[in-house]
């Protein structure tokens, strides 16, 4: 079991201190001692309501936030302890998709520049033409046209931008992708397309996926296992069926009970 896990998080804490001496000091325990693991090629969902700390988990794993204490072991190496220079190399294997496709692409850069950045930073290509070849490939894989690389982000719709953001991640062929509310900002009809795309890429590449979301329907659709977070802690972990069909924790039950259901019985 242990040998099979790609990522192991042990007793992770991420706290934020608000206000200096001019204000009353406040410590926010966004992530308050959580432990979980992800196996190779597995989809684990982290689900919870806003402010429960699920996004902070993702940001801590990619070292966009500093952990207060705890261990994050990725493929046998402690991610939190390694020097920044070493972690920059490891970034290739731990990639992140962000929520807002309108904010995650630099508006001043052509798609080709945005997509070449990871290639050149990780020295995966020798020349610009090499890079272009790879970019054209990946764009087609995410359902875009290869000529889209010469355009700017504002020329695309939200769904298309999210495909580009996914391309930026997939171009590195990472072993772990963290998707932070990756489909929440999209309209339902587009959300379904992008969700299908993420699922397809995950299955083709065999990467592990940490899917962070507040939407239980989406979570059920994509996950193998689910961890429910509440106020900085994981209150329940289990396979998809355990969580959705036989929930144990009262919070999980409350969450499931709150979803407005569509009378699909009548419909189908």
């Amino acid at each position, binding site marked *: 079991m242990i040998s099979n896990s790609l990522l192991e998080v042990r007793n992770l804490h991420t706290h934020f201190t608000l206000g200096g*001496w001019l*204000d*009353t000091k406040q410590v926010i325990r966004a992530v308050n001692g959580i432990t979980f693991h992800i196996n190779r090629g597995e989809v684990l969902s982290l689900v919870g309501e806003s402010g429960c700390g699920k996004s902070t988990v993702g940001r801590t794993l990619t070292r966009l936030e500093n952990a207060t204490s705890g261990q994050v072991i990725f493929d046998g190496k402690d991610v939190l302890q390694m020097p920044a220079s070493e972690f920059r190399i490891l970034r290739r294997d731990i990639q992140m998709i962000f929520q807002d496709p309108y904010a995650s692409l630099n508006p001043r850069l052509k798609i080709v520049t945005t997509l070449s950045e990871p290639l050149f930073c990780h020295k995966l290509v020798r020349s610009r033409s090499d890079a272009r070849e790879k970019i054209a490939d990946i764009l087609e894989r995410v359902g875009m046209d290869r000529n889209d690389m010469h355009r700017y982000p504002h020329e695309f719709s939200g769904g298309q931008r999210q495909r580009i953001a996914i391309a930026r991640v997939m171009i590195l062929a990472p072993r772990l992708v963290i998707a932070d509310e990756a489909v929440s900002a999209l309209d339902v009809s587009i959300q379904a397309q992008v969700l299908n795309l993420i699922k397809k890429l995950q299955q083709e590449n065999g990467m592990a996926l940490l899917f962070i979301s507040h939407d239980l329907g989406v979570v059920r659709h994509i996950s193998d296992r689910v961890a429910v977070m509440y106020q900085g802690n994981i209150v329940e972990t289990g396979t998809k069926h355990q969580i959705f069909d036989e929930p144990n924790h009262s919070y999980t039950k409350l969450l499931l009970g709150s979803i407005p259901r569509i009378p699909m019985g009548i419909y189908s």
Partner: protein
Amino acid sequence: MLVYTFKRLLACIPTLLIASILVFLFIHLIPGDPVAILLGDAATPEDIAALTYEMGLDQPIWTQYLLWLGNVLQGDLGTSIFFHEPVLSVIADGAETSILLALMTMIWIVVFGIPIGILSATRHGSWVDQITSGGAMLFASIPTFWLGLYLILIFSVGLGWFPSSGFPSISDDGGLLNIRFLVLPSLTLAAPNAALIIRLVRASMLDVSREDHVRTAKAKGLHPMAVSLRHIFRNALIAVAAAFGFTFAALVSEAVVTETVFSLPGIGRLVVQSILRRDYPVIQGVILIIVVLYIIINLLVDLAYARLDPRVSLK
């Protein structure tokens, strides 16, 4: 609120310290021996040696700074080379004029700036807005001294309504009526600053008017005037208050010019004359006082801000 005030006061201390170091270093930045500079051209070598010892200039610079700071805290800002009087009393002589000028200017700024700004914002896009906001920008583009000269030319030389220069103290003959000497200078000084406030009130009101809560207020069926004043202006006031410190600095800058144009015996003209006379202790003293004043005003602005915006004070 009390705790907030106290903490905010404490936060001023590092700023004051850095400012005092900069002001202190000013004398040392002037090329040449500071003692010779302080004593002026007429000083003998004996005087210089005596003062060097007295001021502790043979000591390391940190000790000198602490000595100087100690003197400043006791109200001793040094002696003017030109007047041979304590700097503090030289400055105090100009204080009445400058304070009265500032007060009168503030009145103009509030009386003209805020209503015109509101008018401009509520009539956004109309000809009223184009004239008021364009006019404000034009007034902010006029050099202060040029405006002053032409006001003198029209209202004193031409029409003879107001005196053109000088300001006898209100304790002299004429009493409060002497204020008339300040009408033209205060208008000169107010013009660019009122223009700034007009533009600021307009811009912040337009900004607030796009916020969601304004739509809520409109949805209640309130009169557009009530929406503008009670909801939009009240919120815009927060930004206007925050910019007040900036206005003060602009005011001081232009006061230097205005007092020179109207030959007012204020602190602004004192600075210019002291610079031309190379009366460095006075320059240093005035700068120190203005900087301290600026920091105090910013402190007051912050406290006012906390009263205007409940999100700040009631943390």
